[in-house]
C-alpha cells in the first residue's frame, strides 16, 4: 500500500528531516510512527499527502509513484487518504454534521450520498446524537472523533493521524485509539504518528521509530521505548 524507497528530505537551511528512509506498509496494517519532536514523523505525513516532495528516493501509494504525480492529480491522491490532526481542524461555525458533510461536499459528492454516509460514520464514532452541536460545545475527545469521522467518511484506503492524542488526556486518548483500531478492522491502513507512549504500549502494534530523520527501528509488535 505504501512504500518509501531511500527517501531523503532536506528543508531550506539544510535541516535534514528524513535520511535514506525505506519502509513498506501493507494494506490493512496499523502502524505507529514514533520518535521525539523533529524526528521526521510529520514530514513523512506531509510527503504522503504530497504537501512536500522528496528530494531523493521514491514514495509509492497504492501502486503510484506520488512524486511523479502531476499537479492536478494531487487532490485525487488526497481523496484516498484521510487525515486527522492534533488540533482537530474543525470549522467552528459548522455543526458536527456539516463538518463531516463538508468533506464530501467539496469533492462533489451528491446530496443523497452525503445524507446516507454522514449519519453512518457519526454512529461509528459514537456521535450520532450530537450531530447538530457546534464544535465548541463538545469535549476535546468528541471533537477529535468528529475529525476522525470527517477523515473516514469518504472511506479512504489510508488514514493518517498526526499526534491525534496530543491535546487529550490519557483516558480520552485510549478511546480515540480504539476508534482508530476499529477503523483499521474495516481494512483501512492506519498510520499514527505519535510520541504518546501510553497508547503505543497499550496497542502492541507495529512500531516504526525515527530519530533525526533516520529509521532506527521497525518492530512488528512493539512498544514506545526499547526494553521489552
Amino acid at each position, binding site marked *: 500500500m505504501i512504500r518509501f524507497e531511500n527517501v531523503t528530505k532536506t528543508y531550506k537551511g539544510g535541516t535534514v528531516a528524513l535520511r535514506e528512509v525505506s519502509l513498506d506498509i501493507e494494506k490493512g496494517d496499523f502502524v505507529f510512527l514514533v520518535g521525539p519532536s523533529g524526528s521526521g514523523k510529520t514530514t513523512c505525513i506531509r510527503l504522503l*499527502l504530497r504537501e512536500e516532495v522528496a528530494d531523493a528516493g521514491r514514495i509509492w501509494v497504492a501502486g503510484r509513484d506520488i512524486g511523479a504525480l502531476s499537479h*492536478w492529480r494531487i*487532490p*485525487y*491522491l*488526497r*481523496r*484516498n487518504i484521510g*487525515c486527522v490532526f492534533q488540533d482537530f*481542524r474543525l*470549522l*467552528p461555525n459548522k455543526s458536527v454534521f456539516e463538518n463531516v458533510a*463538508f*468533506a464530501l*461536499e*467539496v*469533492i*462533489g459528492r451528491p446530496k443523497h450520498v452525503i445524507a446516507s454516509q454522514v449519519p453512518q460514520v457519526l454512529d461509528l464514532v459514537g456521535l450520532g446524537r450530537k450531530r447538530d452541536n457546534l464544535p465548541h460545545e463538545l469535549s476535546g475527545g468528541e471533537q477529535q472523533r468528529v475529525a476522525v469521522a*470527517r*477523515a473516514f467518511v*469518504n472511506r479512504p484506503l489510508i488514514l493518517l493521524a498526526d499526534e491525534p492524542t496530543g491535546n487529550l488526556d490519557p483516558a480520552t486518548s485510549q478511546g480515540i485509539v480504539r476508534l482508530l483500531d476499529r477503523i483499521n478492522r474495516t481494512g483501512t491502513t492506519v498510520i499514527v504518528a505519535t510520541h504518546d507512549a501510553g497508547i503505543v504500549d497499550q496497542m502492541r502494534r507495529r512500531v516504526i521509530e525515527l530519530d533525526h530523520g533516520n529509521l532506527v527501528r521497525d518492530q512488528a509488535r512493539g512498544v514506545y521505548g526499547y526494553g521489552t
Partner: protein
Amino acid sequence: MPVSLDYVTRETASNLWRNRLMTIAAVLTVAVSLSLVGTALLLRQGVAHATTKWQHGVNVLVFLEPVNPPLAALDANVKPSSPGQGQALQQQLAIQQQLTTLPYVRTCLYRDQQYDFSEAQHLLPADESQALTVESTPASLRCVLQDPREAQAIYMQFHGRPGVSAVSYPSQAVKNMEQVTHILQWVFFGLALILLLSAAVLILNTIRLAIFARRREVSVMKVVGATNWFIRIPFMFEGLVQGVLGALVAALVVIGLHWLLDRLAHGSSLLYQMRLSTGEVFVTNFWVVLVGLLVGTLGSAFAIRRFLDA
C-alpha cells in the same frame, strides 16, 4: 469535476455579504469609472454624428445644384435621361474637373443626392427634414485639402457659380467642438483608467480578505482532496460579480444620460445632431459591461494567484 451552481452561488453570496463594505466600495468605484468610460464613448459617437460631414479629413464641401431626376453617378459615361439632365451632368463634371486640378486639393469625393438626402434626414430636426426630398437635395463634392486654410480660397472661387448651390467649410465652432471633445475624451479615458485600476485593486483586496477569512476552510478542503478549481471558483466569482454589478450601475447611468440628452435635444440643434440611436447605446453598454467583467476577473485572478495557495 462537478462544481455545483448551488454551491458556488451560496459561497459567493456569503463571501460578498461578509465583506459587504468592501464590496460596496469596489462596486461603486467600478460604477464611477465605467460611467466615465460610457460617457466618453457616448460623447465620441455624438460628436462623430454632429461632424459626420467633416469625417475623414474633409475640409470643404461644394454642394451642386440638385438635378431632377437625380444623376446616378458623376461620370461622363452616364446616359442622360433628358437634355436638362445632360446639361447638368456636363456642368458638374466641369466643376469636379476644375476642383481636382487645383494644386492644393488632394482628393474630392462625390456623394450623390440620395446619400446627402439620407445624411440630412439624420442631421436635421424632423420638421426641416420632412420638407426635403431626394430631388431637392443637392449632391456634394467633398474635398480634402493640402492645407485646410485654403478652404476659403475655394469658397471665393466657386461660391455663386452656375451649378453650385453652396460652398461650405467647417466653422471655427465646429473645429473648437472637435478639439474640445477630443481633449475631453482623453481626460475621461485617463480618469477612467486610473479609477479602473483602483477598482481592480479594491476587488483584489476584498478577495484577499475573503481568502484570509476562509483560510481554515481552504486548508480543510485541500486536505480532503477538493480540486484547485473547486476552491478557486467561489473567489473568482466574487470578483466577477463585483465587476459586473459596478458595470450594470454604469450601464444605467449611460442609459439615463442618453435619455436626458434626448430630452434636451429638441431645444438645441447641436445636441440634436449629436443624438444617438438605441442600438449605439446598447453597443456602448455592451462594452461597459465587458470591461467591468474583465476588471472583476483580473482583480480576483490576481488575488487568487498571489494569496490562495491552491
